[in-house]
């Protein structure tokens, strides 16, 4: 990755530049938020059951909330890799050729299977899609919404745009992107379409 500054960061000048420390901090905030959403429902369910066993149906509803809220957040994270409708065959083939020139053999093969490109960076391992990217750091994954604003572009070109920006300035790329979710990789993996899951499995 290069040490240049991505020019798009000027459009989000109020955001501090993302680095490993800020990523770790954001990750902790996400975890605390998840806990804050989950614990009260769980405690309330247990308390209700302890006070009145007949309240079990209400307790079950509360536990369902405790389970569903983190799942919805994870789904939001997985959605950053959602595929867009493809362009016509000719442009898609041309774009695929260019993307193929930008990545190595393994990444090409993975893209053919999953529609996603794996890119190893200084902050972690990126899984780049058409309108977003995942950053895997250990067992945690950060899900970023980021896109090129031209719906006519073939899907491989949309990925190539993000890949080139990422390679130019990884921290700037993360600064421009919007964080949609940060949490356990397994949680996001199971919300991905099965065809995309090998991209997350290929990280290790």
């Amino acid at each position, binding site marked *: *990755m*290069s040490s*240049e500054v*991505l*020019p*798009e960061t000027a*459009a*989000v000048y109020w955001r501090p530049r993302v680095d490993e420390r800020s990523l770790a901090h954001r990750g902790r905030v996400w975890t605390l938020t998840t806990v804050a959403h989950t614990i009260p429902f769980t405690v309330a369910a247990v308390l209700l059951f302890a006070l009145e066993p007949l309240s079990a149906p209400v307790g079950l509803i509360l536990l369902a909330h405790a389970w569903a809220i983190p799942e919805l957040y994870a789904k939001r994270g997985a959605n950053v890799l959602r595929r867009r409708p493809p*362009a016509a065959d*000719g*442009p*898609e*083939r*041309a*774009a*695929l*050729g*260019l993307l193929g*020139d*930008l*990545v*190595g053999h393994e990444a090409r093969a993975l893209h053919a299977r999953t529609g996603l490109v794996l*890119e*190893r*960076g200084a902050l972690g391992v990126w899984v780049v899609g058409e309108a977003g990217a995942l950053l895997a750091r250990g067992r945690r994954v950060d899900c*970023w*919404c*980021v*896109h*090129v*604003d*031209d719906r*006519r*572009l*073939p899907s*491989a*070109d949309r990925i*190539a*745009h*993000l890949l*080139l*920006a990422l*390679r*130019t*300035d990884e921290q700037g*790329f993360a600064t*421009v*992107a*919007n964080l949609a979710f940060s949490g356990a990789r397994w949680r996001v993996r199971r919300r991905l379409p099965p065809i995309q899951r090998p991209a997350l499995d290929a990280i290790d």
Partner: protein
Amino acid sequence: MRTACISAERTIARMARLIRMDDTGHTTLAEWTAADELSFDAAVTAFREQLDSGLYAVVTEGEGHARQVDELPLDAELVILRRPIAGG
């Protein structure tokens, strides 16, 4: 005959390209060689026009590396024009 073929391949290999990612996949806007000033000048003109229209130019430097450029590098093999990205 074989020598001529090899010579042609090498000439093509040295030909640098300025391409723009667009709705056709990509479009080659200019090609040049270090030895041909006219072709390079034409490429610089095309390059400037694209930058003025809001595109960014990137030179790939092997897998995992890219460099943004404001001037067309004479010695680059491939210069790619991309649109700005945004969050959301």
